[in-house]
C-alpha cells in the first residue's frame, strides 16, 4: 500500500450547469496537514464534502487508504468532520456531544468515559464535560467540535473553515492548537480555508483552487515563490504583474524584454523565444536605489509611500500603465526607506526573484 491517504482521480461534480469541481486530481500524503485554498465558490468545500461522503461525484473516483469509497456513506469511511458552525448538538452537554459517536459504536461506559476524558484533556477542556453547549465561548465550542471528531480516531480529519467564526487573536491561538494536535496525533488533516495566511502558516501542502480546478499543489514555499499561474500569484500574497516579450532561452535562463531593457529570469516550460508572457514580482523582493545598479533594474518615479511598521510600501511608476509596489525594510537608522514622492529611483531585483508566467495559461 502506498503512502497516500486521500486520492482524487478526475473527479467532477456538477450543480445544474455549473461544474463546482472539474476533473480534479488530488493526492494527500499520510500524516500531512493539507489545505484546500481558494476564493468562495472555487469548489473547495464541495471537494471536502466529497471526501466526507456528504456529496457524491458525478464522475471520477475517490480513494481513501487505497480503498474506493466513491459511493460509500459517510460513516463507512474512516473520516470525520469539523463543521464551520461546529454543528454541536445543542440539547446535549459537552460529554454527550463527544460521546455520541462512541455510543453508536456500542462501547461500554467505562471505555466511553476514559476516551472522552482523554480527548477533552487533549483539547484542553478538562472538567468541562457537564457544561451545556450554550454556556461555552466560541473557542470552547470549536474545541468540543474538534474533540467530537477526533475521539473517533479517524484516518483523516476534515476541517471546513473551522476558524472563520473566531476573532483574530483566538484564530491565531487555534492555528497553533490545530497544528499541535495534528503533530501529537499524527492524523492527516484536510483544511478548507479562504485565508491564504492560514493556509501558508499551517500546511505541509496546499492545493490552490479556482473555478472548480486545482491551479497548483505544493508546499507553501513553492506556491509562494513559484506560482504556476497568474491566479495563484495574485491570490497568494501580493504580486506585481508586467507584460514582457521573450527574446531568448538559454541554460535555464530566459531573457525577456521589458520597456526596451533586457531582463534575466528563470526559464519556464512552455514559454519559448518570441512569446508574449507576464512577469510576476513580489513587492518584498524589489530593492529601491537612487543610483542604477547592474543586473535586473527598471527606472521609475516614486508616487506614494505608506508606512507599515516593519516596512514601508512604495508605489513606483515604471511606465505609463504600470505602477509597481515595492516594500523596503525599515532599519533602525532607516537609510534605505526614505524616498519621497516625485523622486526618481531604480527598482532592482535578483534574477531568481521573478516568476515568468505564460500568457495563454492565465487567460484560460
Amino acid at each position: 500500500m502506498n503512502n497516500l491517504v486521500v486520492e482524487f482521480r478526475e473527479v467532477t461534480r456538477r450543480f445544474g450547469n455549473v461544474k463546482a469541481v472539474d476533473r480534479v486530481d488530488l493526492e494527500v500524503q499520510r500524516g500531512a496537514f493539507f489545505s484546500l485554498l481558494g476564493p468562495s465558490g472555487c469548489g473547495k468545500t464541495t471537494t471536502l464534502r466529497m471526501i466526507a461522503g456528504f456529496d457524491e461525484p458525478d464522475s471520477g473516483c475517490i480513494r481513501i487508504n487505497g480503498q474506493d469509497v466513491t459511493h460509500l456513506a459517510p460513516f463507512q469511511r474512516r473520516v470525520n468532520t469539523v463543521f464551520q458552525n461546529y454543528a454541536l448538538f445543542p440539547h446535549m452537554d459537552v460529554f454527550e456531544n463527544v460521546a455520541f459517536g462512541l455510543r453508536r459504536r456500542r462501547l461500554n461506559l467505562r471505555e466511553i468515559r476514559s476516551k472522552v476524558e482523554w480527548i477533552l484533556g487533549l483539547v484542553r477542556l478538562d472538567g468541562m464535560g457537564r457544561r451545556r453547549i450554550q454556556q461555552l465561548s466560541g473557542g470552547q465550542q470549536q474545541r468540543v467540535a474538534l474533540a467530537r471528531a477526533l475521539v473517533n480516531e479517524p484516518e483523516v480529519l476534515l476541517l471546513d473553515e473551522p476558524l472563520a467564526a473566531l476573532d483574530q487573536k483566538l484564530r491565531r491561538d487555534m492555528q497553533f492548537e490545530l497544528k499541535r494536535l495534528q503533530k501529537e496525533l499524527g492524523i492527516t488533516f484536510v483544511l478548507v480555508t479562504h485565508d491564504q495566511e492560514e493556509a501558508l502558516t499551517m500546511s505541509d501542502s496546499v492545493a490552490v483552487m479556482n473555478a472548480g480546478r486545482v491551479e497548483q499543489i505544493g508546499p507553501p514555499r513553492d506556491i509562494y515563490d513559484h506560482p504556476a499561474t497568474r491566479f495563484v500569484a495574485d491570490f497568494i500574497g501580493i504580486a506585481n504583474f508586467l507584460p514582457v516579450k521573450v527574446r531568448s532561452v538559454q541554460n535555464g535562463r530566459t531573457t525577456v524584454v521589458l520597456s526596451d531593457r533586457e531582463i534575466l529570469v528563470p526559464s519556464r516550460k512552455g514559454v519559448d523565444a518570441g512569446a508574449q508572457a507576464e512577469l510576476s514580482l513580489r513587492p518584498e523582493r524589489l530593492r529601491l536605489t537612487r543610483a542604477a545598479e547592474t543586473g535586473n533594474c527598471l527606472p521609475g518615479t516614486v508616487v506614494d509611500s505608506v508606512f507599515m511598521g516593519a516596512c514601508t510600501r512604495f508605489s513606483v511608476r515604471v511606465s505609463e500603465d504600470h505602477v509597481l509596489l515595492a516594500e523596503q525594510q525599515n532599519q533602525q537608522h532607516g537609510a534605505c526607506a526614505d524616498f519621497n514622492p516625485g523622486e526618481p529611483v531604480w527598482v532592482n531585483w535578483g534574477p531568481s526573484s521573478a516568476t515568468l508566467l505564460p500568457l495563454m495559461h492565465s487567460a484560460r
Partner: protein
Amino acid sequence: MRERDSGGLPYLYLAPALLLLAFLSLLPNLYSVWLAFTNYSLNHYSDYSFVGLRNFARILQGPEAATFARVFAWTVVWAGASVLLSLGLGLFLAILLNNSHLKGRTFYRTIFILPWAIPAFISVMMWQGLLNTEFGAINLLLANLGLDQALAAVVGLFTKDPVATPIAWLNTPGWSHIAVLAVNVWLAFPFQLTTCLGALQSVPSDVYEAASVDGATAGLQFRRITVPLLRSALLPVLLSSFAFNFNQFAAIYLLTAGGPAVPGSEAGATDILITYSYKLAFNLFQYGMACAYAIFIFILVATLSGVNFKLTGAFEDAN
C-alpha cells in the same frame, strides 16, 4: 434631549383608545363578573338581585353538578385530543415536507395551509353539508365504496345496539364526537404543521451530517436529535393550543350546536363549557349562571396560560 413638560397632552392622545378599550372590554367583563353573583335570568329580568355564591354552588352541587362534570370532562378530552391529533398529523406532514428530496414541496405546503386560510365559519358550514346524513358527500362516498355497511358492522361489534346506516354523523352521540373532532383537527393541523416545519428548519443540516458521520441512522437521528430539539419549541405551542381549543366555540356551535340532546340535561352531547355557557345565556336566558360558567372557564384558561408563561420563561432561562 431635554425633557419637556407636556402636561396632560399624552393622556389626551391616548384617551380615544383607552375609552374604546374600557367600553368594549373592561366594562363588559366587569359587568359579567357582577352578573355571576346575581340571579339575573328570564324569571328575574327586571328584579334581579345579589345572591352571593349561589350560582357557583349550583354548578358544583345538585343536579347541575352532573352536567358540569360531563361537559367539563368532554371539554378536556376535546381540547386534548384536538391538540394531540392535529400535532401528530402536523408533525408527520412537516417531516415529509422538510425532506428536500420531495418534489413539489411548495405545492403541498400551499395545499396544506389552505384549511387555515379559509375562514373557519365557512369551512365548518361546508363540513356540516359534507357530513349531512342523507345528502352529505361523505355518506355518499362511503355508500358508493360499500364502506358504510362495513364500518357500521365493525363499530357494531363494540356497541350494544346495531349501528344504523347511513350514519347520522352529527346527530348520534359517539359519531358526533368523532365528527367534531375530525373537523377540528382539519381546522387546526395547518398551524401545527407550520410550527413543526419552522422548528425542523431551524435545525441546521450540518447537525444531521455530524450525526451521520458517527453512524446515526435516520430513525436514530429522529429520536436523538429531532425530537429533543422540537420538544422545547413545541411545548409552549401545545399548551397554548390546548387553551385555544378549550374555547373553540365555532367548530362545535356551527357543526352540532352542542347536540345531539342529552335527556335530562340542558347541555348536549358535544357541548363544551364555552358553548354550554352561550346556550345558558342566549337560549335559556340564565345570565347569572352563564356568567358563573364564564368565570370558571376564565380561571381554568388563566391557570393554563400561567403555567405556559412559566415554562416558556424557564426555557429562555435555560438557553
